[in-house]
């Protein structure tokens, strides 16, 4: 306990010295976030300073072991760091699919060589990753995917198409589900890692309702993927043809992340701020805000409980699905109410005063929360079958 108290005061002092004031407020939309990668640019000096300080301390991935680029914090210490960062409103120094998704999968399934090689790159923000799961015909029914890798001995030749690949045009590498055995639905998929600069990989951005184009169609045209990048560094995670196990494990983490269980923002009430900003709200809206705050504060307690239970292995393995469902539906409601309280100002699409229309763009972006990483309907199906054990169709 005394050790933790000391850790807390050290952390507080470190944050005080290293977290610039500009980094102590929420990011203004997706392009105000640092994603790392080979072609990364910083939006401003504060963003760079904050990232570099965290990278050097291992705080981009505080709970990962030191030899893989983390700070090796215990779960209790990591919680203290999270609390102290939340206390001053510090943003994450680095946003990264490598941290949220690939990293946990490598920590669980990777070889020692893969961990040393890839995890360090991820922790240091050197390589930006994208996720090649969905295909035009395979969304919720992901396992029906068709992208095919033909076995050529020491390499595969990959052909096919992915869709909704977030930031594919900005990513350096892709973690990609590729069918390597056509006869076997579940046990015929390999989880491959390869460079987006490989010949035959091309991307085409898709414009979203928010006006942004954060994701792409991704095409693979005779892409040559080697089976290994060096001693003990296979180009696939887990076993060949057993990539579905890795994909499912990763989806668990993705859902946890999207649920926002870990974010203080998701659980906070909004009624006080919104009615102040709007100069008061009418009674029916106030009532909705109050009901929302009840749900948000209750969800916040659930998020805390969930993380506590995960830490000691008490959570049901399918519980991330419940968190994803509840957290994303709540976030959509939050932004509906923010639009309602904002009135006509929240409609402004690109004025300076509205920071480039952050409110309407964010509102539109949240609609994807209950689609990406598995839809709400799919989550409910998983809860019904795996937790309530209702009979399958």
């Amino acid at each position: 306990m005394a050790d933790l108290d000391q850790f807390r005061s050290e952390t507080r002092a470190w944050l005080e010295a290293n977290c610039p004031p500009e980094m102590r407020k929420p990011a203004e939309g997706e392009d105000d976030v640092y994603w790392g990668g080979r072609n990364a640019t910083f939006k401003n000096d504060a963003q760079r300073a904050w990232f570099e300080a965290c990278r050097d301390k291992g705080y981009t991935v505080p709970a990962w072991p030191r030899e893989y680029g983390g700070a090796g914090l215990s779960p209790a210490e990591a919680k203290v760091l999270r609390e102290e960062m939340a206390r001053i409103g510090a943003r994450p120094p680095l946003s990264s699919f490598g941290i949220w998704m690939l990293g946990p999968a490598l920590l669980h399934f990777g070889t020692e060589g893969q961990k040393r090689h890839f995890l360090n790159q991820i922790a240091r923000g050197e390589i930006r990753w994208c996720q090649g799961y969905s295909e035009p015909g395979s969304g919720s029914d992901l396992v029906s995917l068709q992208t095919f890798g033909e076995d050529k001995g020491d390499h595969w030749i990959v052909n096919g198409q992915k869709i909704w690949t977030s930031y594919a045009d900005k990513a350096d590498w892709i973690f990609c589900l590729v069918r390597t055995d056509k006869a076997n639905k579940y046990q015929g998929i390999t989880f491959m890692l390869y460079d987006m600069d490989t010949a035959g990989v091309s991307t085409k951005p898709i414009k979203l309702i928010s006006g942004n184009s954060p994701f792409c169609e991704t095409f693979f045209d005779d892409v040559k993927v080697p089976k290994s990048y060096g001693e003990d560094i296979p180009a696939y995670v887990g076993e060949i043809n057993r990539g579905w196990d890795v994909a499912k494990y990763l989806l668990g983490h993705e859902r946890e992340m999207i649920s926002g269980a870990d974010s203080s923002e998701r659980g906070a009430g909004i009624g006080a701020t919104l009615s102040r900003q709007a100069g008061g709200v009418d009674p029916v809206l106030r009532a909705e805000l109050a009901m929302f705050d009840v749900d948000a504060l209750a969800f916040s307690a659930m998020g805390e409980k969930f993380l506590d239970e995960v830490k000691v292995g008490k959570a049901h393995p399918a519980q991330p699905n419940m968190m994803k469902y509840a957290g994303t539906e709540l976030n959509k409601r939050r932004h509906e109410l923010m639009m309602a309280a904002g009135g006509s100002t929240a409609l402004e699409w690109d004025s300076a005063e509205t920071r480039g229309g952050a409110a309407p763009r964010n509102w539109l972006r949240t609609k994807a929360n209950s689609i990406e990483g598995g839809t709400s309907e799919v989550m409910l199906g998983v809860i019904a079958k795996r937790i309530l054990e209702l009979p399958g169709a």
Partner: protein
Amino acid sequence: MPLYHTDDQAMLAETAQQFMAEEGAIAKQLRHWRDRDCKDGFGHGLWKQMAEMGFTGLLVPETDGGLGMGHVEAGIVLEEIGRNLTPSPFLTSSVMAATALAVASDEARGRWLPGLVAGESVFAVAIDEGPKHRPETIATRAERSGNGFRLSGTKDFVVYGASADMIVVAARTSGADDDADGVTLFAVPKDAAGLGHNSVRLVDSSMASHLTLDGVELDGDAVIGEVDGGRDVLNRVLDAGRVGAAAEGVGVARGAMDLTVDYLKQRKQFGRLIGEFQALQHRAAHLYSEIEIARAATTKAQQLLDADAPSASLMASVAKAKASRTAGLAVREGVQMHGGIGMTDEYDIGLYMKRDRALAEFMGDAFYHADRVARLSGY
């Protein structure tokens, strides 16, 4: 503090679960007493058994003969009470009245607490003065008289009031009806002259009193806490009641959901188990999520209350509002998914719906508490 139960609490939960499922079961308690038109609405035998288990004195300090535990532990028992719809004065006696008596004089504690711990006394709490929970307004008057007080006024929704050996009454010793100050709590013994009950059976088969205080004469030592300064204690009693009712509500929700999910796994229509229909699966899964969240909010409120944290009041209202909404959803979905059979008295699911309705009003409904969340948040 982690939001799951410690090993000791998990053990208590197991004990309470087993005890309530056996001794507090619907057939053995709720239906039994209801079908006999029992004037108490609960069984004194069970109350005695609960004392033997140590439940009655959970929140009573060890120096007063209790177990000196907290709201988390009381909530564990209440959740099982809710799951089994066990009629019991536990919430009013062992949670609310015990919270009030914690600040009472040595003499008052010595007079009342041993009976509670032994399961020989039951207590009620009289706060509301109308059909809705409005504890901000207290019109019942207590005027000084001799070395004591004279109480006049009426109280409503005094749960198990006519069966209680002592009723904690909130009355006004000074100021206007809406004032925060000027409130005093009194321990009113059942045989006090001028105390009258119009006891009525509620929709859930429990009994509640319309209480009349017609110049009830009390000694000075009937005062609990400070004269005129009772609002803080009252708020503590209310928060304890809210969080307790939330825990019981979570239990009601879980009981209703368990029955319903079991039914979905048994009933066949169109040649299939109805649990195979996605329309019902998704609603059941949504209900599960809501119950988990309500439960987490309730545990959080219990912990904050035990820690005497400043945010306990806000979280108490969050818990009561969330639990009420969730239990309401659980019983409505439960009856609907049972189809026609859910409308019959023979099946238990309807009993859950009735209990939920009474519990929803007890200590303030979801509307009251959402409003309170807004007020405490400054809007």
